[in-house]
């Protein structure tokens, strides 16, 4: 027995086994203790509450919802709002971050200083404060609905949000939307083909201009093919508020602005670090073969810089998803606000609701990092 313990390999396995057993026993104890205590205190358990009627309204829902729907539906409304805000902010902050990151390294003194001032200011103010600033200071000072700021008689801006005309979902609208998607898919393959041709023959094909041209022409053709019948629902003042059209609420706008402006600073820094990590010799080589500054950036520097910038950017995307839960401070109805907040308080089953919410964030975050790791893998320099 003791001889066996002196064997380093056996001992290693033994201690690992003991640790695992200890851990499992501990978790099992916590689990049963919790269940026991909850039952003793007469608190309802299980997921049965999800099929109960919610009884409360939600102000901004991407899917059909009213107070007669179930808590299960509330969960999905919250989840969709979390996903929507995350996708929009990821998209906007990537563009803004890329632009600012490049501008910060500009040779123009003013542009470079402005960019770095922007980064230093917004990166160093807590995000919650920025959300509250946009919500309680900027958007709240807009005029009341009856004194809305008006654009072209059909777009209205006031302290209850931005109201824009919304096209009815008829065959023309759908046709045009499908055609836009089609153009993007086509442009993707066109780009692939052009790259291949460029590598084989050296001939350039203007993918960008062709794409932009198609983006204008194709939807117009689609518009006439599918009946030429755009029908907008326009916002108009009725009673206290505007009705009709599409509304972007202040909660949504404040969250989008704050998260985009905040996260873009970090992405800009990631881009800058990527660019600065590209060897100076690369830029000099690009210049020596006669590439312009823009060409050098686009063809030589950025493709290498982006590879370096991707891992820190992934972290920022994950932060966006998680930071979106700060919306609870201003009442944007994302998952934490309506499910881990309102629903939790109506139902009172903290353990079930909080674990569901945590699981959702875990799954979203793992999915985002899986996708971006895959992109990272694809863009890695292929060493041969």
């Amino acid at each position, binding site marked *: 027995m003791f001889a066996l*313990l002196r064997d380093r390999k056996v001992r290693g396995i033994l201690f690992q086994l*003991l640790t695992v057993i*200890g851990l499992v026993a501990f978790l099992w*104890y916590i689990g049963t*203790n919790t269940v026991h*205590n*909850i039952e*003793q*205190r*007469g*608190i*309802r358990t299980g997921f049965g509450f999800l099929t109960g009627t919610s*009884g*409360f*309204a*939600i*102000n901004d829902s991407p899917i059909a919802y009213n*107070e007669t729907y179930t808590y299960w539906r509330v969960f999905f409304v919250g989840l969709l709002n979390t996903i929507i805000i995350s996708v929009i902010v990821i998209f906007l902050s990537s563009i803004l971050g890329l632009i600012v990151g490049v501008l910060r390294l500009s040779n123009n003194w003013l542009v470079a200083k402005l960019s770095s001032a922007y980064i230093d200011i917004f990166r160093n103010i807590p995000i919650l404060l920025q959300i509250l600033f946009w919500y*309680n200071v900027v958007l*709240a*000072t807009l005029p*009341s609905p009856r004194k809305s700021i008006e654009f072209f008689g059909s777009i209205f801006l006031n*302290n*209850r949000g931005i109201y824009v005309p919304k096209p009815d979902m008829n065959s023309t609208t759908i046709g045009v939307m499908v055609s836009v998607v089609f153009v993007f898919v086509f442009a993707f393959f066109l780009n692939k083909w052009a790259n291949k041709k460029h590598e084989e023959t050296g001939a350039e094909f203007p993918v960008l201009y062709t794409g932009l041209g198609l983006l204008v022409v194709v939807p117009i053709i689609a518009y006439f093919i599918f009946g030429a019948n755009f029908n907008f629902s326009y916002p108009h003042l*009725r*009673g*206290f*508020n505007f*009705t009709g059209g599409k509304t972007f609420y*202040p909660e949504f706008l404040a969250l989008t602005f704050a998260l985009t402006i905040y996260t873009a600073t970090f992405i800009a820094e990631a881009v800058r670090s990527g660019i600065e990590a590209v060897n100076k010799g690369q830029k000099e080589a690009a210049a020596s073969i006669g590439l312009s500054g823009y060409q050098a950036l686009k063809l030589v520097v950025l493709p290498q810089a982006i590879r370096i910038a991707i891992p820190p950017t992934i972290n920022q995307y994950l932060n966006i998803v998680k930071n979106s839960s700060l919306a*609870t*401070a*201003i*009442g944007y*109805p994302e998952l934490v*606000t309506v499910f881990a*907040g*309102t629903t*939790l*308080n*109506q*139902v*009172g089953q*903290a353990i079930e609701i909080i674990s569901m919410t945590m699981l959702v964030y875990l799954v979203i975050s793992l999915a985002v990092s899986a996708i971006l790791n895959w992109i990272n893998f694809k863009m890695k320099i292929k060493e041969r």
Partner: protein
Amino acid sequence: MKSKIAKISIAAIAALSLSASVASADTLSDTLSQGYLKCGINSGLPGFASADSQGHWSGIDISVCRAVAAAVLGDKTKVKFTSLNAKERFTALQSGEIDLLSRNTTWTETRDSSLGLNFAGVNFYDGQGFLVHKSLGVKNAKELDGAAVCVQSGTTTELNLADYFRKNGMKYKLVAYDSNDQVLKGFETGRCDVITSDSSQLYSLRIKLKNPAGSMVLPNIISKEPLGPVVRQGDDKWFNIVKWSYAAMVAAEEAGITSKNVDSMLKSNNPTVKRILGVEGKLGENLGIRKDFAYQIIKQVGNYGEVFERTVGMGSPLKIKRGLNALWTKGGLQYSPPFR
């Protein structure tokens, strides 16, 4: 090596069994041994729970905490207050962070039956109303079709609001915040036309506005909101203590005992007064606390009527009338079970 593992595992088992005993504690002896009452309150609602510049809490909900502290510990100041928002309150009570929740909480069937809670009485009979800007020109809640309504999320208020508009075939835009401060801000900046809440809260929110005269409470009351102190289910002894501490305040008003005359009342010949004050009988001892618990409450905190007038009634900025909260003998609903 082996003995070391044995030691560790013994320590671990000891620690685990210790934590198991904490989970099934009895609240009275915990409170006595720690020397203070853990009470959950609203973070700021004038009349119900608000702190002055020195950090002293006062309000009708605070009085319940003070009364229980006076009854159990003999000193109304031995309370540790925990400010909670609407979302946090039940979890705080369930998990044992607080032992008494006195935070304008509506007694409903769901809360009583599925949250593991017990309501120990009703210290304020309330109903839900609406606060509007006068400039809106609205005189009745039925005219609110299409309005944007600010509400504190996760409350019964939010549910009643949905019911009321559905019942009357009206539409509204919900603006739900998780704190009353943000609700107030939303109303002041014009994010919403209306605040809906328990009408007592509307009065206290109104005096927090920059221009209270520019707003008014509509006459409509759309729900029943019995607000009361809450304890955890499963500790009947503690439940009884809280229930009777509150009842003592009402019984004192019924019997005409006030904080001013309580000492002279000790010599009263009235058997009811004698029993309430613990001069006769063993009512306090039956509860497991001091014999003179009601005396301590009345002496230190006051009877229900005194507390009401001081915190939310005519002696306060809120100036709420007794209404439903008058004694049953005066057309109200406040009624104490007999002290005998």
